[in-house]
């Protein structure tokens, strides 16, 4: 057994030495106690307001977490950007707020614990950049693939024309000419799509209801689906809160996935065919899922779904850019695309957006937080 004196010494040392900045604030946001790490990180704190010490502000932060904890007595955590460190790089903190509750239930104080996660943030950012570059590389490879098909078409057209001339076969000449025209038109539409893909558009990120985009898409494709005798349904999780998304971008992604799913159903010979667009929230991750019971994909098609762009659809029905565009937009949101597919049974395509990786809204407005 250790003595009370030793125990107290350990407690004090523990409080001061943990590599986490800890302070206690009262209901006026004045810091009443802090540990040594806090003093070393943020400097003088006695009788100062937390927002002044943390962020050099003269008034309370708009999205103050402590205010919420004072109000509801619940612990919470969030990521915060701190004042720039000496080299001018922003520091990132994971801030946890824990209420100190009196016997009568009043929250008198809140403990704020800030852990420096700047290094983790930096690595996360580097990973995102690397992922984006990899996507660009694959796109270029895919571009080459698409162009090779067109070149073959042009060479074919020229060959058939000259063969027709040699044989004095006007029908052949016309056939070759048609091939040339068709492939020149393909180049034009490719060029347009490539440009759209490369340029993209500046994502406009705003707080939106993820379910609303899903509902719009299901409405948009309702007619197309019913004309083909396919049941298109929405299965939406009503508890999902708003998220900072590029609405038009997500619209494009879901439209691509639904259009693919409908095509997969059309290629299948089954009587009863369904496409379901579902939304879910799992582990602080927003999930869109498009499930179809269409033709599914074979092994070799699955292998190539993202590594090269190609289309298994009839010519004229797709350039193979749909999934690549989808992946690009999803990656711009810090998310990922995955799929499962079984030949003859159908496919599931999934867009996952961890909320912690979602971009900041571009309109500068403070997002409204759900309670």
């Amino acid at each position, binding site marked *: 057994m250790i003595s009370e004196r030793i125990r107290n010494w350990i407690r004090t040392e523990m409080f001061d030495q943990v590599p986490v900045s800890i302070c206690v604030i009262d209901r006026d946001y004045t810091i009443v106690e802090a540990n040594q790490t806090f003093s070393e990180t943020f400097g003088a704190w006695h009788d100062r307001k937390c927002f002044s010490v943390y962020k050099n502000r003269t008034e309370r932060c708009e999205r103050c977490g402590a205010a919420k904890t004072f109000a509801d007595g619940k612990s919470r955590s969030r990521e915060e950007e701190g004042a720039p460190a000496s080299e001018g790089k922003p520091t990132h903190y994971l801030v946890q707020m824990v209420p100190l509750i009196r016997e009568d239930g009043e929250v008198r104080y809140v403990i704020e614990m800030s852990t420096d996660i700047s290094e983790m943030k930096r690595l996360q950012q580097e990973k995102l950049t690397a992922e984006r570059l990899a996507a660009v590389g694959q796109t270029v490879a895919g571009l080459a693939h698409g162009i090779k098909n067109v070149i073959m078409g042009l*060479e074919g057209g020229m060959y058939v024309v000259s*063969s027709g001339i040699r044989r004095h076969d006007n029908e052949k000449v016309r056939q070759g000419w048609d*091939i040339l025209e068709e492939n020149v038109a393909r180049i034009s539409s490719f060029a347009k799509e490539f440009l759209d893909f490369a340029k993209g558009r500046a994502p406009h990120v705003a707080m939106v209801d993820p379910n609303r985009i899903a509902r719009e898409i299901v409405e948009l494709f309702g007619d197309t689906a019913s004309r083909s005798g396919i049941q298109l349904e929405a299965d939406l999780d009503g508890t999902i809160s708003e998220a900072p998304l590029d609405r038009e971008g997500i619209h494009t992604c879901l439209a691509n996935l639904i259009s693919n799913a409908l095509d997969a159903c059309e290629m299948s010979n089954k009587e009863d065919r369904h496409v379901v667009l579902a939304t879910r929230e799992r582990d602080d991750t927003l999930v869109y899922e498009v499930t179809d019971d269409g033709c599914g994909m074979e092994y*070799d098609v699955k292998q190539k779904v993202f590594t090269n762009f*190609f289309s298994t659809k009839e*010519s004229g029905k797709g350039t193979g850019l749909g999934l690549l565009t989808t992946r690009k937009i999803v990656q711009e949101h810090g998310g990922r695309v995955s799929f499962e597919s079984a030949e003859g049974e159908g496919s599931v395509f999934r867009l996952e957006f961890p909320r912690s990786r979602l971009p900041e809204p571009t309109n500068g407005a403070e997002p409204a937080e759900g309670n």
Partner: protein
Amino acid sequence: MVIDDESSIIAYLTTVLEDEGYDTCSAMDAEEAVAVARQQQPDLITLDIMMPKRSGIALYQQLKLDDNLRRIPVVFVSAFSRSSGVGPASFRKMIPDERVPVPDVYLEKPVAVPEFLETVASLIESTEADAGPGSGEAP
């Protein structure tokens, strides 16, 4: 026999072959291909990989497991580059069935006409030599 989901590729390759004196037939998907191949018994098949419904790889497997069709040499003609992993090694991964032989030849789109014709001629020749004289198949 030319199998491709693009009519322009079919027109191109059949014209090249006809100019060289071959009789040709064609199909635009796997199902049609099997029917035409059974009926026409071609001396050689050129096969695209990426086609709707069923891919060229799946069709190839079916052809090689069909007693009436397996003797027909197959030339893959596809825009996949060898560096993208279409080769003997990846082929075995796609089709582990050892009864299906690794494809004879793989030509990358756009194909060069002389190389294409040379490949076709040598494959038909070697198949005929394998079959021996008087095996009875009309060209």
